[in-house]
């Protein structure tokens, strides 16, 4: 187990290295000059060159990348070009908020998606099933911004159940998490429906019923742990998709997370921040996948870690 985790961590480090390199190259060839942005409108050509030198942006790509890695090895992600602040500090200050929202969002996504999927599987072929599947399409196709704003408008402004955006208490968390949950639930409900349908046909479910267990025990005690496996693998895949949704939801709900930081940085070509955020999100995805793989054998003892 420890050996497995260790091996996976080494693999992850390689993946992160790859991600950093690709990002670096992409940003390098991007048709936008960060120095121009720093130097401001009134700057002379000399000032611009001067700044370029100071930042080492006049060096060849590989030299720049080498320097970046050397600094990275010491935990230094560089300084933001425009905010003149340590990227590490910027990210760390926003990370807790994003992690909180992500955790809550994934939980909401799972609760909604799984319950929809289970309900659909139990009602398979009937009207309720079809309505639920229709709903899953709506959530997958709905524009994130509109859904976020709509929920905010109805539940915070009109009904006043939750604060209108912001961060801090559990009450602030509910609405953005539910929004993320709704937006992501469609995929899960579809997966859950098909895997649940399959599991409900299995012999051991018949055995469980033959023992005289209650319906709830059969569905949740016997079928669910088996049906949830493909869904767990999905969580690993989903974290990447999730990052996209977080940008929008954070901005609508005024949630001080990484998403907003990334969005601004992309608009302004603040390369150190883009690099930092990319690495952090890649790390999140890699860890998410690792966790999903580690959780799977806890649920299904047949799965061995190799």
């Amino acid at each position, binding site marked *: 187990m420890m050996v497995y985790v260790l091996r996976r961590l080494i693999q992850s480090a390689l993946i992160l290295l790859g991600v950093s390199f690709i990002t670096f190259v992409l940003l390098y060839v991007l048709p936008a000059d960060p120095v121009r942005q720093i130097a401001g409108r009134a700057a002379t050509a000399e000032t611009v060159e001067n700044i370029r030198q100071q930042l080492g942006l006049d060096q060849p790509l590989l030299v720049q990348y080498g320097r970046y890695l050397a600094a990275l090895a010491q935990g230094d992600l560089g300084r933001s070009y425009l905010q003149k602040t340590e990227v590490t500090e910027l990210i760390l200050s926003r990370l807790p908020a994003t992690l909180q929202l992500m955790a809550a969002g994934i939980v909401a996504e799972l609760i909604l998606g799984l319950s929809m999927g289970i309900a659909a599987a139990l009602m398979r072929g009937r009207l309720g099933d079809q309505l639920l599947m229709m709903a899953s399409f709506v959530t997958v196709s709905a524009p994130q911004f509109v859904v976020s704003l709509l929920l905010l408008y109805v539940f915070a402004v009109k009904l006043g159940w939750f604060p209108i955006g912001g961060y801090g208490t559990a009450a602030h968390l509910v609405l953005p998490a539910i929004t993320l949950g709704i937006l992501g639930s469609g995929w899960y409900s579809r997966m859950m429906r098909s895997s649940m349908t399959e599991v409900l046909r*299995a*012999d051991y479910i018949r*055995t469980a019923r*033959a*023992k*005289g267990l209650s319906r709830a*025990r059969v569905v949740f*005690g016997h079928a669910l742990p088996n049906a949830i496996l493909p869904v767990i693998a999905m969580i690993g895949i989903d974290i990447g998709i999730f990052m996209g949704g977080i940008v929008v939801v954070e901005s609508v709900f005024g949630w001080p997370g990484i998403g907003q930081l990334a969005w601004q940085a992309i608009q302004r070509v603040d390369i150190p921040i883009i690099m930092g955020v990319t690495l952090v999100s890649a790390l999140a995805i890699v860890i998410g996948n690792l966790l999903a793989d580690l959780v799977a054998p806890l649920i*299904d003892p047949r799965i061995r870690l190799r």
Partner: protein
Amino acid sequence: MQEVATRSGAAAAPDAAPDAALDAAAEAAPVLLVAGLTVSVRTEAGLKPLVENLSFTLRRGETLAIAGESGSGKSMTSLAIMGLLPPPAVRVTAGSIRLGQTDLTAAPEAQMRHVRGDRIAMIFQEPMTSLNPVLTIGTQLAEAIRAHEPLPRAEARRRALAALTAVRLSQPERRMHQYPHELSGGMRQRVMIAMALALRPEVLIADEPTTALDVTVQREVLDLLRDLQRDLGTAIILITHDMGVVAEMADRVIVMKSGRMVEQAPVRQLFHAPTEPYTRDLLAAVPRMGARAAAAAPAPLPAAEPVARLSDVVVRFPVRGGLLGRTTLNVHAVEHVSFDIARGETFALVGESGCGKSTIARAIVGLVPHQGQITVGDHVLSAHGRDAPKALRRKVQMVFQDPMAALDPRMRVGDLIAEPLLIHGIGTAADRRAEAADLLRRVGLSPDQIDRYPHEFSGGQRQRICIARALALKPDLIIADESVSALDVSVQARVLALLQELQQEMGVAYLFISHDMAVVDSISDRVAVMYLGQIVEMGSRAQVFGDPRHPYTQRLIEAVPVPDPAHQRRPSVRMTGDLPNPVHPVGSGPERVILRDVGAGHLVAI
């Protein structure tokens, strides 16, 4: 560890009911009364009956066997009793099932829940898939108990443990914490029985409880069921197609065919004086040990060039581990096996599950890498498997253990049968189609079924499709891996006859793999007995079955149920130990057995 007890011994379960108190009146009282039961399935063409007008009674302490060919509605009957017919298409359309005062066909689901497990328990056909893979054995047992009695968890687990002990599972405490996949098929079936035992039901339905098991394990399970019945007075409905099992276990027998009861009679009467022709056919089809012994003289060892020769073949599966994924353990699936298969002969491999029979078969067709030398015709197989030349592929064909799994469910059978021809570029599309139709006819199927899909055939028919497919290339050797084990006797008999017929016609040799001694006895020329990857005895059929020398061979033969209710079985030794383990650390391995010739080519391990 082996725990030894004799069958007649008084190793009673802790919760044993007073069997002495069984009085005649109680015995006569029916616990279950089925009258005019009809189970139908809703199809596009309307309601189609699967079970029609079935009536029988079951008394306390009695064993009622339901026998009949596959698809005759045996399982449907038992599911109807449990109220577990697959919704929504299949349901009871007429008749009644009375348990005491309750009519189960009319009982609401909530009431059925109390009946299930508590008053009627069931052991399902498939021990491998009938336990939930993600819950421990202990949990699954304890929850069954708690579903009917409001016991604290610890108490329920204590009862579960007692039940496991009662079914003589080795190391019961450890089993409580294990998961189903860590147990062998026989152990799982015992767990299922333990569940029934713990619940102390009035009626136990056992649906083919031993079909998937080795003969030795089957023996154990049957003994257990008998103990259970004796100790608790449970009435048992035993569903099986194995007439040997019926003869040993049943008090009364119902024979079914296409959903209808053909005959009902006490067991002796049925075996000795069957009234219906169908029953007679059924009994005639049952393979019997030693039936052929007198008929055939010891087969002369053919001098001809062998179609396949294995010398010192070893197959190991590495188990990887550690940081660098190095091999730390090996599964020693096949160890130093050597034998020849002569042109036109039937060579049988027998042995318990997991002893390496299929692995040998796979090595010969090049699906697994091997050490040692395998020669097919005049071609030596490359050791790493896979890339055998096409020409070689034509010489050897394999019929897989599970016909459903071995046919691509999305192809029509015509295409499946013609596919080998297509792959080897033989003939035009029309030729191939005609050839496929011809092959279908040869294996006893109708050519107009050519555009059907595999799932539209019964298990026996599918097996014939596999055989037709193997024949398409006119190979020298066909490997038949448990090709008839899953079939009911009548179909089995037909397939075996087909194989023999084809052999005479085409001169094809068979490598026949089976754990069913009676079948092997009826078809093979020569036999090799395998134990833990090695051959422990080998010789002509007459040598091995008529004069078994190795204790393992003797035990295998002994365990075969005899389809004769009058037969008296000698008390046998019970084994409860763990399965012998073929996994060894790298560098070590099992002790190599040495075969000695005890006369006329009869090789026995010493």
